[in-house]
C-alpha cells in the first residue's frame, strides 16, 4: 500500500467526522499555542531585562574590594581568622586609569546622610565620585553642570542634586548657586540631574553627588567603596579586567584581593535565569499536549469501535494487520500534525495581539520552543495512537463483519 494512499484514506476518514476532528484539532492547537505563547512571554521578559541592563552600558566594569570566591565553598577559614580585605583607595583609582584599555574611571563612596536648605531637611544617599561618573552612568543634567574635572584628592564644597532632592528642597525655584548643608559641611549646588528613575535597583533621583574627597571627609574614611571603570570598547572588556587585576595586585603587595564584576557576567546571569523560566513555562504548557494525546487515544478508540465493520471488510479484502495499524496511526498523526499547524498559527496570532497590547515587551517565541511543541504534539499523537491502532488490527474479521 502506497504512503500517499494511506494518507489520503486517513484524511478522508477525518473529513467524515468534521465535529470530532475539529474538537481534537482544537485540543492539540491549544496545547501548541500555549507553548508558543508562554515561551514568547518568557522570552519577552528576558529581552526586556537584559535590554535594561545593556542600556547601562556593557563596557562597564565594577571593582570591589575583597576576593569573592565564585566557585566552591569560599574561604570559610579566612572568615574565621578574621582576614579582612585590603581597602581600595583613590591611588588605586589613579593607577587603574593609566591602563590604555580604559576610557574612564571614577571612584565611588556611598553613605547615608541628610541634606538641608533653610528649614527643609531630607534623608538622602550621598554619592562621592568624580566628573567621569556622568559619562559612565549615561546620566543627563537637568540644569547647571556636573562635578568639575579636578584632582581626586581635592575636597571641594560643591554638590549636584538628584532630581527629587532638588525639587523638594527648592520647590518651584532653581537650586543653582544655592548653599545647602550636607551633614556638617556647607556646599554650593552646581547643578541638578534630570530625572533618571531606577537603575539597577538604585534611585539616583534621591541622592546628592559630591566630589569623592568631600564625601570621604564627611564619612571620615580614606577608603573607596567601589571603582567604576569604562573599558575602551566592548572588545577591550576582558583585557581591561586583566589589567585592573594586575595593577591592583602590584599595589597590594602581590595579593589578588579584588573582584571585578563585568556587566556581561550580570547580563549573562539574568539571561540564564530567564531561559530557565522560559523552559519551565514550555514544560508546563507541554503537559497540555500530553492531555491532548490522551484525548486522541480516547477518540481513536471510539473510532475503532465505530468502524469495526469497516476494519472487518478491509481484512476480508486482504489488508494485512500492519496496514490497518498504519491507517489508524496515520490518522492520529494527521490529527496531531494539523492541530500543531493550527496551534502555531494561533500562537503567532496571539503574539501579534500581545505586542499590540504591551508594546514595551518584545514578545517572540524561541524557535526551539515552537519546534519542540510540534514534535511533542506529533509524538503524543503517535504514542497514544498505537493502542487504538493495535486494537483495530487485532480484531477478528468474522466478528468485525457481523457488526454493521
Amino acid at each position, binding site marked *: *500500500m*502506497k504512503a500517499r*494512499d494511506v494518507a489520503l*484514506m486517513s484524511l*478522508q*476518514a477525518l*473529513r*467524515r467526522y468534521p465535529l470530532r476532528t475539529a474538537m481534537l484539532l482544537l485540543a492539540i492547537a491549544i496545547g501548541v499555542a500555549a507553548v508558543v505563547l508562554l515561551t514568547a512571554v518568557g522570552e519577552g521578559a528576558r529581552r526586556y531585562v537584559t535590554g535594561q541592563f545593556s542600556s547601562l552600558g556593557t563596557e562597564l566594569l565594577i571593582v570591589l574590594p575583597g576576593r569573592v570566591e565564585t566557585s566552591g565553598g569560599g574561604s570559610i577559614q579566612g572568615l574565621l581568622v578574621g582576614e579582612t580585605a585590603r581597602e581600595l583607595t583613590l591611588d588605586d583609582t589613579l593607577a587603574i586609569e593609566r591602563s590604555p584599555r580604559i576610557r574612564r574611571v571614577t571612584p565611588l563612596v556611598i553613605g547615608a546622610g541628610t541634606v538641608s536648605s533653610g528649614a527643609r531637611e531630607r534623608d538622602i544617599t550621598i554619592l562621592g565620585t568624580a566628573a567621569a561618573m556622568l559619562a559612565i552612568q549615561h546620566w543627563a543634567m537637568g540644569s547647571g553642570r556636573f562635578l568639575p574635572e579636578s584632582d581626586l584628592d581635592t575636597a571641594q564644597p560643591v554638590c549636584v542634586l538628584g532630581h527629587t532632592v532638588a525639587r523638594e528642597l527648592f520647590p518651584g525655584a532653581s537650586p543653582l548657586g544655592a548653599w545647602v548643608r550636607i551633614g556638617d559641611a556647607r556646599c554650593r549646588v552646581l547643578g541638578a540631574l534630570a530625572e533618571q528613575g531606577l537603575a539597577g535597583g538604585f534611585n539616583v533621583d534621591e541622592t546628592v553627588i559630591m566630589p569623592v574627597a568631600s564625601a570621604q571627609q564627611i564619612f571620615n574614611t580614606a577608603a573607596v567603596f567601589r571603582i567604576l571603570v569604562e573599558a575602551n570598547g566592548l572588545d577591550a572588556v576582558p583585557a581591561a579586567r586583566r589589567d585592573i587585576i594586575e595593577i591592583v595586585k602590584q599595589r597590594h603587595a602581590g595579593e589578588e584581593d579584588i573582584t571585578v564584576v563585568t556587566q556581561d557576567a550580570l547580563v549573562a546571569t539574568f539571561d540564564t535565569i530567564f531561559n530557565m523560566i522560559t523552559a519551565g513555562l514550555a514544560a508546563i504548557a507541554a503537559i497540555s499536549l500530553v492531555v491532548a494525546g490522551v484525548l486522541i487515544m480516547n477518540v481513536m478508540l471510539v473510532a475503532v469501535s465505530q468502524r469495526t*465493520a*469497516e476494519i*472487518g*471488510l*478491509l*481484512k*476480508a*479484502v*486482504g*489488508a*494485512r*494487520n*500492519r*496496514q490497518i495499524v498504519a491507517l489508524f496511526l496515520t490518522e492520529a498523526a494527521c490529527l496531531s500534525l494539523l492541530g500543531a499547524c493550527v496551534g502555531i498559527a494561533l500562537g503567532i496570532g496571539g503574539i501579534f495581539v500581545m505586542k499590540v497590547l504591551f508594546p514595551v515587551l518584545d514578545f517572540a517565541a524561541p524557535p526551539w520552543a515552537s519546534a519542540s511543541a510540534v514534535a511533542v504534539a506529533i509524538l503524543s499523537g503517535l504514542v497514544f495512537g498505537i493502542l487504538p491502532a493495535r486494537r483495530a488490527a487485532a480484531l477478528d*474479521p*468474522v466478528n468485525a*463483519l457481523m457488526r*454493521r
Partner: protein
Amino acid sequence: MMELSGICREYLVGEEVVHALDHIDLKIDAGEYVSIMGPSGSGKSTLLNVLGLLDRPSSGIYRLQGEDVSNLDDNELAAHRQRHIGFIFQFFHLIPRLTALENVELPLVLTGAAPRARRERATAILESVGLKARLSHRPDQLSGGERQRVAIGRAIVMQPSFLLADEPTGNLDTRSGNEIMQILEQLNRDGIAVLIVTHDLGIGDRARRHLTLRDGKVVADVREPQP
C-alpha cells in the same frame, strides 16, 4: 479447488462447546455454482467463513488450490484471501465515505497498485455491472441493488477464483435480487466459482449444486445433471 477433510469448528458458548462444523469433507472445483442451505445455526455461515479464510478450523485440513491453509497466520491468510477469494455480504459493507469507484478500487489500493491503472480497472468493472453513471456516487446515494453491484465489483476486482456470497439478496427486493443473481451467474459462466449461502429456496434452486447443512454436518449434496 477447495478441499476440506475432517474440518471441525467449535465455539465455547458459556460452558458449552458448540460444534458449528462437525467433520466436514467437501470438495469444490473451479467454476462450480454451489448453494449452501440449511436452518439457522446449521453452520452454513461458519462454513463460508472457513472456506473464505476469515475463520480458522479447530481441526482438519483445508487445501486451497492445492496448498494447505489450515494453519496460516493472519497475514498469510490475508494474502490468500486477496489472491483467491471475493466476498459479497448481505449488508454490502461498502465504506460510506468512499465513492462507488473508490470502494471498488480499495482492494487494489491495498496492493499498492498505481492510481491510474486501478482507476481504469475499477471503472471498467463498474461499467460491466451497469453502474457507468454512478462512479462518483457515495453508497448513501445509491439504491440497495446498486450498492450490491458495487460490492460485486469490489469482490471481482482482484480476479478471484472463488466468489463467496452470504445472503447476497437478503436485503434486496425481488427485482434487484434477481438482477444481482443474473450478474453472479454471468460471472460464473465466465469461470469464477460461486458459492451462495441463502435461506431463499428460489435463489438456492438456481445453483447447479446444492449443499444442505444441519447441526454442522453436510446432510445432502445434490448436483443438477449437466444440461
